């Protein structure tokens, strides 16, 4: 190896000595050979000539000797690189156009790939993350996916499965962290003691939970998330041992987590299950239907997900058979185990893959464009190349040189693209944060850089190969013709094909963007069923203690009265949630059991599911949700009289198809026992509670009577944002110890609820725009080249009497023919590919005719302009000059 390096070194850096040696060596041979021939009776002159013939010429032999050296390949490569760099320096316009085009393509791909890699491909930051699975309980026939788990269900899977090493549970709760004069809501994850051991997470500070922490009666302990520790505890290094008051007892901090994405939810603090007042109550633990938790598990070593799934399906049917009252056969109970890595990125997956495909398309267009530029440049070089071929340069050598130049170009483009990538990625990350926790792991690092390098070199080879091999005329035909004004037909065809392909791919992207835009416009036009403007909402959380179920009733009344009295507040209401609540957007409608009087569910019926909202009397008036039948709630309903409910139109349609629901009675299942019958007094209009794109589900609105619902909703007469501080202060005037958070306007929540379609529309639009710009600049370049190549022909036509406009339209026609062919091809491609977008489209068919027509029109107009600009160059041609040109 060392020898080899030494020899390469000698070859590259001791050229002169090597050349002298080679020269002397051959001279010696020739001399001896000449002497030999002289000795055989030849004249000195003839002998020398014969000697030279014998060795096959001195220079070719020298060249072959040099070729035998390893350093030669490197030297050639360096020569080619230097030559390529010189060419690029001499053609700054070409170099800049090609590099910027490539940089856009490669930069876009690098940014999207960083996201795809970080979210979908990077191994989980947990020890042996591949063994972690998430358990999902489904009741497929009852249309319930992702039913939460009860304590008993988790215990069953833990005890009866054979493939799971451990099962852990998780649920989120909000608790108040109390200090002397204020209270703060903390998102609390309630987990099994072995939660962190199963995930394989080591604490940054202190320790994680041990089995003893989960025992009832042990001291309450907390683990802080890294984010919460940084933002709320100022990264206090002495935090371990600090005591917080929570749920009316002291909690000691025992650890701080490292900065990792938290699954299944981002939380501020963690506590063991025994510390959650709800989870630890005997009634909750004993009831198989008290479902609140998420469950996940670590597979035993060597067990595949499929094996675990088979095992768990058996357990599920055992559970189903043992508890027929809880899992009626008609519900179709099942359990699905899915790998955590897939589960954690489930919501982002489809979107990311579509974006990666789209970015790939943009890169293809960029490649085609640069290939065309390169072809145009080679055309000018044809003569030089022909001369070199005639002088003995092999075709392989010339191809190698063209390829080196194109790869040099693409690598430079890639470097430039890397400069674009971080800002683009920052925007992407901000947009995708809402979809998966793993966005936090997205960064441009080794694997991403490797990807960038690979696609850079790959694109260089792809766009370099086409022109390199199209030049079959290098054998010298171009040279023999003595003129390069007639370019070879095959190369012309190749350029046309590249333009058609570029146009087709651009049209596909444009069609995709058009569909997304149309769908997004449709979505924004959806009537939400209420009026979201100037609505401010906040979550108000009283602590228990100091409050009791009796005192919170009064607290709610007081808060509402005081807030309504604030100048600038039109009206205010309290409710358990509000439309477009981001929490509801993720989880979807809840499933509550209810029964209509006189319509007992038959055994085979699927249990009706409904969302129950508890509201104060003026809720409908406040959010301006119309009451279409019967009456709204009154203040009297809050205080006394029989309990009443209001249902929405969707429920009325489903359950009272041909009758008036007002006056009918329903009852609810509360922890396995039925509540008294409650009368329906009104029907409210449907509201798009879970986002404009989601159908309105069945809703029942109950009136608040006892207790407290923690959403304050106020309609202001001024800008709601400007009112936030005043309203907050007013609430704290009533009770300084309630925590206030999630302060937002409903309009903002509506805007956020459309984040996903907006992101897709925006990105597809940007990519399509990029594609159109790149391909149209490509069309313009090719047209300009065609005109300059045909200068002579055009000159003749004009000399023979063709007028300028006829010549312009001839050139235009040829350009537009390519564009039309590409557009037609692109439409066909779009029709075939747009199905992939169907999950992202709202109220728009993937083959929406109007969109396709509009998109092709738009593209044709832009492309026509791109054709027209170079076609006008024709008018500058002077027939006299053109004819003399040679």
């Amino acid at each position: 190896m060392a020898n080899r390096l030494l020899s390469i070194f000698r070859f590259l850096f001791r050229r002169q000595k090597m050349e002298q040696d080679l020269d002397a060596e051959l001279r010696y041979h020739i001399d001896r050979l000449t002497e030999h021939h002289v000795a055989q009776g030849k004249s000195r002159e003839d002998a020398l000539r014969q000697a030279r013939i014998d060795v096959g010429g001195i220079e070719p032999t020298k060249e072959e000797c040099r070729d035998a050296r390893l350093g030669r390949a490197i030297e050639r490569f360096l020569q080619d690189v230097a030559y390529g760099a010189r060419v690029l320096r001499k053609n700054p316009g070409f170099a800049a156009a090609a590099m910027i085009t490539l940089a856009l393509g490669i930069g876009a791909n690098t940014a999207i790939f960083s996201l795809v890699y970080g979210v979908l491909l990077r191994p989980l930051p947990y020890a042996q993350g591949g063994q972690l699975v998430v358990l999902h309980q489904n009741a497929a026939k009852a249309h319930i996916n992702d039913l939460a788990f009860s304590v008993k269900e988790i215990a069953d899977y833990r005890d009866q499965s054979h493939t799971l090493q451990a099962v852990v549970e998780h649920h989120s709760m909000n608790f108040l962290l109390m200090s002397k004069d204020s209270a703060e809501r903390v998102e609390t994850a309630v987990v099994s003691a072995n939660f962190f051991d199963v995930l394989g997470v080591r604490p940054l500070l202190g320790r994680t939970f041990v089995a003893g922490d989960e025992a009832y009666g042990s001291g309450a302990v907390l683990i802080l998330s890294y984010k919460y520790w940084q933002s709320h505890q100022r990264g206090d290094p002495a935090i371990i041992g600090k005591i917080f008051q929570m749920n009316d007892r002291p909690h000691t901090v025992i650890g701080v987590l490292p900065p990792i994405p938290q699954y299944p939810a981002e939380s501020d603090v963690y506590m063991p299950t025994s510390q959650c007042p709800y989870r630890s109550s005997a009634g909750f633990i004993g009831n198989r239907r008290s479902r609140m938790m998420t469950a996940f598990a670590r597979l035993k070593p060597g067990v595949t997900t499929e094996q675990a799934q088979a095992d768990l399906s058996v357990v599920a049917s055992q559970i189903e058979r043992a508890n027929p009252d809880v899992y009626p056969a008609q519900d179709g109970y099942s359990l699905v185990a899915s790998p955590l890595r897939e589960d954690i990125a489930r919501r982002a997956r489809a979107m990311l893959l579509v974006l990666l495909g789209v970015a790939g398309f943009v890169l293809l267009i960029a490649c085609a464009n640069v290939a065309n530029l390169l072809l145009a440049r080679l055309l000018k070089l044809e003569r030089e190349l022909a001369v070199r071929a005639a002088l003995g340069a092999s075709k392989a050598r010339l191809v190698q040189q063209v390829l080196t130049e194109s790869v040099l170009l693409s690598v430079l483009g890639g470097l430039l693209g890397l400069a674009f990538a971080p800002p683009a990625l920052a925007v992407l990350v901000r947009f995708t944060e809402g979809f998966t926790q793993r966005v936090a792991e997205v960064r441009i690092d080794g694997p991403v850089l490797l990807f960038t390098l690979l696609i850079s070199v790959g694109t260089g080879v792809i766009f370099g190969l086409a022109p390199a091999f199209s030049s079959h005329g290098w054998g010298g035909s171009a040279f023999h013709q003595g003129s390069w004004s007639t370019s070879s037909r095959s190369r012309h065809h190749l350029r046309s094909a590249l333009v058609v392909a570029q146009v087709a791919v651009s049209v596909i992207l444009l069609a995709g963007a058009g569909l997304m835009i149309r769908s997004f416009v449709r979505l924004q036009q959806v009537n939400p069923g209420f009026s979201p403007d100037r609505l401010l909402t906040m979550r108000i959380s009283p602590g228990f203690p100091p409050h009791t179920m009796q005192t919170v009733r009064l607290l709610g009344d007081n808060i509402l009265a005081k807030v309504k009295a604030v100048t600038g507040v039109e009206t205010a209401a309290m409710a358990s949630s509000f439309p477009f609540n981001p929490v509801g957007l993720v989880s979807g409608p809840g499933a509550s059991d209810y029964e209509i009087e006189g319509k007992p569910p038959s055994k085979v019926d699927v249990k009706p599911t409904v969302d129950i909202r508890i509201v104060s009397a003026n809720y409908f008036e406040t959010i301006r949700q119309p009451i279409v039948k019967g009456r709204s709630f009154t203040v009297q309903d809050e205080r006394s009289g029989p309990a009443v409910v209001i249902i929405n139109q969707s429920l009325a349609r489903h359950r009272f198809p041909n009758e008036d629901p007002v006056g009918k009675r329903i009852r609810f299942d509360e922890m396995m026992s039925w509540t008294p019958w409650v009368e329906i007094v009104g029907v409210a209009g449907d509201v798009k509670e879970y986002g404009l794109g989601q159908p309105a589900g069945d809703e029942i609105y109950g009136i608040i009577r006892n207790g407290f619902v923690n959403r304050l909703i106020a309609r202001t007469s001024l800008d709601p944002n400007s009112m936030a501080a005043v309203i907050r202060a007013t609430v704290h005037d009533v009770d300084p110890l309630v925590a206030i958070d999630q302060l937002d306007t409903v309009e903002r929540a509506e805007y956020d609820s459309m984040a996903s379609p907006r992101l897709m529309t925006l990105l597809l639009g940007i990519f399509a725009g990029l594609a159109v710009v790149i391909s149209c600049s490509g069309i313009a370049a090719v047209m300009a080249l065609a005109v300059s190549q045909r200068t002579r022909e055009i000159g003749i036509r004009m000399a023979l009497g063709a007028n300028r406009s006829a010549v312009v339209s001839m050139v235009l026609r040829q350009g537009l023919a390519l564009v039309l062919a590409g557009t037609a091809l692109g439409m066909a491609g779009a029709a075939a590919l747009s199905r992939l977008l169907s999950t992202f489209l709202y109220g728009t068919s993937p083959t929406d005719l109007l969109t396709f027509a509009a998109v092709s029109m738009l593209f044709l107009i832009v492309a026509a302009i791109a054709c027209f600009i170079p076609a006008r160059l024709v008018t500058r041609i002077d027939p006299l000059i053109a004819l003399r040109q040679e």
Partner: protein
Amino acid sequence: MARAKSELLQGTLDLLILKTLELEPMHGWGITLRIQQVSESVLQVNQGSLYPALHRLEERGWIRATWKASENNRQAKYYELTAQGKRQLVEEKQNWLRLSGAMARIVGTA
């Protein structure tokens, strides 16, 4: 020159060079002569391919070169076998014997 300037089999030139250098260090011209002499002029080395072959073998580390005064008192580039070259020669020799034996059996020299 007219006689038997048959193309040498691929790789046989390398073997001839190594074998020739086994006896003593030699320059290119000497190698040409030696092969002709020993083969009784049956084998004529194509002088155009001799030098590239020498450079290739040197590149591989099988032979190394030094400048020395030659028999006619001029500086000439002498090649000699390296240790690696000696090992290679043994191997190439065996290969050749196997091949030529097989060839002989097929063509039927008996």
